[in-house]
C-alpha cells in the first residue's frame, strides 16, 4: 500500500537574481512498512527534502501526499495535529530536553496528544523494551551515552505509533558501535513492529540497513537501488558502487 507519495516537488531559495534550486522536480513514493534511505552529498538537497516531508519547511511547487492528505496545503493547528499524530522525528543531535528524564522525554510526545496517564505509562514501557533502554528511563540526558540518547530519541519518535518515522542523519553523532546498535533497532522496528522509516544519511554503512536507497544529486534523483534478497554486505557493496559513480565529495564519506 502506498503511504507517501511525492509528486514533482520543487524548492527554491534566494531571489530571482540568484536562485538556488535545492530540490528540482523530485517524485517518488514510499510503501507502507518500507525502510528507505536517502543518500547524497552535503548540499545535494536531502535534508531539504526531509524538511519538506516533515512539514518543517514548505515546498515551492508540487505536492506531498501522506495517506491521501496533501500536506503541502496544511496550515496552523491542522499542521501541528498532523505532525504530532502522523510523524515521528529523530535528529542527528538527539534533541532531547535536558531538564527531563528519559521517561519524561518519551512520555511528552504522548501527553502533547492528550493521552491519559495510564496509557502513557504502558506505551513508554513497551517502547523502552523494544529499544533496550528500560534501565535508563529514570536518567537525565547528561547521564546517558550518545547511543542511549539516540535510542531514547527514537523511542520518543515511535511511541506515538506514527505513520512515518523521519530520521535525519541519526548516526551522525554516534561512534560506530553505537551506530550499529541503533541501526539494528531500526531494522527490528521496521521488520517486527511494521514501522515505516525514512532516513537521510551520507554514510553508506548506515544506508545499507535500509531496504531501498535513493540517491540525490544537485536536487534531483540520481539513482535508486533496492536490496531485494541481497545480504546486507552485498547491498553495502552495491551502494559503494553507486557512490563511486556519484563521485566528487560523496566518495570521502565512505
Amino acid at each position: 500500500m502506498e503511504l507517501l507519495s511525492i509528486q514533482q516537488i520543487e524548492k527554491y531559495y534566494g531571489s530571482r537574481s540568484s536562485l538556488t534550486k535545492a530540490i528540482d522536480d523530485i517524485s517518488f513514493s514510499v510503501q507502507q512498512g518500507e525502510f528507505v534511505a536517502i543518500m547524497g552529498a552535503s548540499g545535494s538537497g536531502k535534508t531539504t527534502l526531509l524538511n519538506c516531508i516533515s512539514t518543517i519547511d514548505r515546498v515551492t511547487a508540487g505536492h506531498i501526499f501522506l495517506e491521501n492528505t496533501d500536506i503541502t496545503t496544511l496550515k496552523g493547528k491542522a499542521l501541528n495535529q498532523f505532525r504530532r499524530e502522523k510523524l515521528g522525528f529523530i535528529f542527528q543531535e538527539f534533541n532531547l530536553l535536558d531538564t527531563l528524564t528519559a521517561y519524561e522525554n518519551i512520555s511528552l510526545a504522548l501527553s502533547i496528544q492528550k493521552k491519559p496517564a495510564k496509557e502513557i505509562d504502558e506505551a513508554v514501557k513497551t517502547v523502552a523494551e523494544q529499544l533496550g533502554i528500560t534501565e535508563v528511563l529514570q536518567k537525565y540526558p547528561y547521564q546517558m551515552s550518545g547511543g542511549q540518547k539516540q535510542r531514547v530519541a527514537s523511542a520518543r519518535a515511535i511511541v506515538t505509533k506514527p505513520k512515518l518515522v523521519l530520521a535525519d542523519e541519526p548516526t551522525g553523532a554516534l561512534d560506530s558501535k553505537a551506530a550499529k546498535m541503533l541501526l539494528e533497532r531500526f531494522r527490528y522496528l521496521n521488520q517486527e513492529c511494521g514501522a515505516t522509516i525514512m532516513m537521510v544519511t551520507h554514510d553508506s554503512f548506515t544506508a545499507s540497513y535500509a531496504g531501498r536507497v535513493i540517491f540525490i544529486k544537485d536536487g534531483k534523483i540520481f539513482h535508486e537501488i533496492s536490496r531485494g534478497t541481497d545480504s546486507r554486505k552485498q547491498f553495502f557493496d552495491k551502494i559503494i558502487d553507486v557512490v563511486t559513480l556519484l563521485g566528487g565529495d560523496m566518495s570521502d564519506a565512505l
Partner: protein
Amino acid sequence: MLFKLSVSNIRRSLRDYAVYFFTLLIGVSVFYVFNAIGGQAAMLRVSESRNDIIELLKTTLSGVSVFVAGVLGLLIVYASRFLMKRRSKEFALYMTLGMSKGNISAILLLETLMIGIGSLFVGLLIGIGLSQLMSALVANLFEADMSAYKFSVSAEAIGKTILYFAVMYLVVMIFNSVVVTRMKLINLLQSGRRSEQIRLKNPVLCVVVFLLAAAMLGFAYYNVGWNYPHLNNKTMALYICMGAAATFFIFWSVSGMILRVMMSAKNLYHRGLNVFTVRQISSKVNTTVFSMTVICLMLFVTICTLSSAFSIRNSMNANLKEFCPVDCEIEYRQYTEEMYGDTTYKDITELYAEQGHDLTADFSEYVHFHNYCDHEFTFGSFLGSQLDKFMESYRFIEYQTPMNLVRLSDYNKLAALYGKEQFEMADNEFILLCDFRSMKEATDSILSEGYPINVCGTTLYSHYAECQEGFIDISSQRINTGIFIIPDSAAEEKYAAADYIIGNYKEQGSKEYESIIREVSLEVGEQDELCRLDINTKIDIADASVGLGALVTFLGLYIGLVFLIACGAILALKELSESADSAGRYEMLRRIGADENELSLSLFRQTGVFFLLPLLLAIVHSVFGMRFSAYILEAMGTEKMWISVFGASLLILVIYGGYFLITYFCSRGIIKERR
C-alpha cells in the same frame, strides 16, 4: 571599525535586552525627578514654616539619593556583568579572529559610553517631563497655589544626575575591563555547553527544612507582630536576620518540593506540556534561590515603605480633622521658684489685658479653664502595686510627674466645643481620658480592678471600667496618654496648675488673629522669666503635619520605586536569558507537534510563577511586618491603612506587572520560530 562593531552590538542588544535599557531610562528619570523636587517646591508660594520643611525635604532627598545611587549602581553592574556572560561566544569569535584584549575592552568601553550618554539624554528628557507631573503632586501635598507655577528644569538636578550616573558607568567600564583581561578563550568557547546537573533534593530533607523555616518565620512573625513591646534594636536585628534566612530556606525547600508534589499527581503531571513547564520552573527556581530571596526581601521593603508612606499622608489629613477641631489653644504656666517646679495659676485674659489687648474679643467661641495637679498623685502612685511590672514594659514613661486633672464641668464645656460626647458622673467618681492605644490597653487593666484613687484629699472611684476616648490639647495625632476628669467639688483652687483658653477665632482659620495673638504673647512672655506661655494653633499643626506627611511620602515613593525597578529588572533579565537558553527546547517541542498556544501558555506560566513566587512570600512578610509598622505608626493613626495598602498595591501591580508583561512578550519573541 571598532566603532562600527560597537554600534551594531548595541543595536542587537537593544532588541533582546530592551528591559535593561528600559530600566536605565527609568533609573535616570526617577533620579532626576526626585532631585528636582526641592527646586520645584521652592517655587510654590507657601508659608514660612513650610519653607523650613522644604529645606529639610531637599537635604533628606539628596541624602537618600546617595543610597539610591548605590542601589542603582549595583543593579547596573549586575546587569552588565550578566550581559557580558551572555556574550561569551561573541568575545570568543573576536579572539579567534586575532583581536587583542585591548581591542575588546575598547569595544566595550565605546558601548558603555554610548549607552551611558544615550540613556542619560533620553532619561533626562523623560525625567523633565515627569517632573512636571510630579510638581502637581508636590503642590497637592503642600496644599499650595499652583497658579504661579511654570514649566521648570532644574539645572542642579541635571548636574547631579549626570555626575552620579557618570560615576556608575565608570565603575561598569572598569569592571568590564577587569573581566576582559581575565577572560580565557577556552572558557569562552565552552560557555555554551551547559551540562546542567539536575539533582533532585531529598524530599524528606526538603519537608524538614521547610517546616523548620516556617517555624522560624512564625517565631519571628510572632515576636515582631505581637510581642513588640519587648523588642529592642538587638532582638529586632536578630528577628530580621531570622526572617531573611527563613526566606532563603523556604525558597530552597519549595523548589525541591514543587517538582515532587507535581510528579506525584500523575494525571496532572502528564497532561499536555505540564511535564516540561514544571521541570522548567523547578530548574529555574533551583538555580536562583539566592536572587529570589534578595528580590523577595526587597519587595517586602517596598510594600512596607509604600504603604506606610501613603498611610501617613492619608491619616495625617484625617487626624487633623479629628484631633485638631479648633483654631487655637493658649496655655499659661507661672512657676513659683524654678522652671518645671510648682506652678501657680494666673488668668490669661488678664495678662493680655495688661498689655492692652482684649483677648476674648478675638474669639467667636472659647472655653476658659484651668487644670489641676496633685503632687501626691503621679502615674506611679496610680499604678500602685503594678508599677514594677509597668516599668519593665514601658520605660519611656515619666512615672513621677503629677497627673493632669480637669474638672468635669470644664471638660463638658470643652467637649461641647469639640463636638464630642459629654460625661456625667457622681461626686465620688472619676473618668480617665486617653487615646494613645498601647497606653489605653495598659491602663484599662488597672481600671478594671476597680481600685479607688486619692486625689486632692478625696477618694474617687472610676465611673467606667475602662478609659474613655478623648483629649484636651489640640494636636495632629493620638498623643493623650492620660487625663483624669474629677468632680468639680474635688478640685480645690489651691491645686490649680495652668490656665487655658481654647477656642475658634472670629473668622475661622484667620491668620490675622493669629499674628495679633502671637505678637501680644511675646510681650506677655517677657514679663517674667518664670512663666511659660504656649500657643498651639491649627495652622501650625497643619503645617508641621503636612510637611512631615510630604517628606515621608516622597521618601517612601523614592525608595519604593527604585527597589521595585531593581526587582523587576533582575527578574526580567534572568527570565529573558533563561528563555534565550531554552529557545532550542521550544523548537524541539514544536517539531514534535506542540501547538503555538500551548507553548505560549507554558511560557506564561513559567514567567508568572517566577515573578509571583517572591511576591507571594513578600506579601506574607508584609502582612506581619505591617502589624509592626501599624504599632510604630500608632500615634499617627492607622484608620485608613487599608486604603494606603490598596494604593501601594496598585503602584506595585503597575510597575512589577509591567515588568512581567514586558518579560513575557520579549521571551515569546525570543522563542518564536525563526524562519
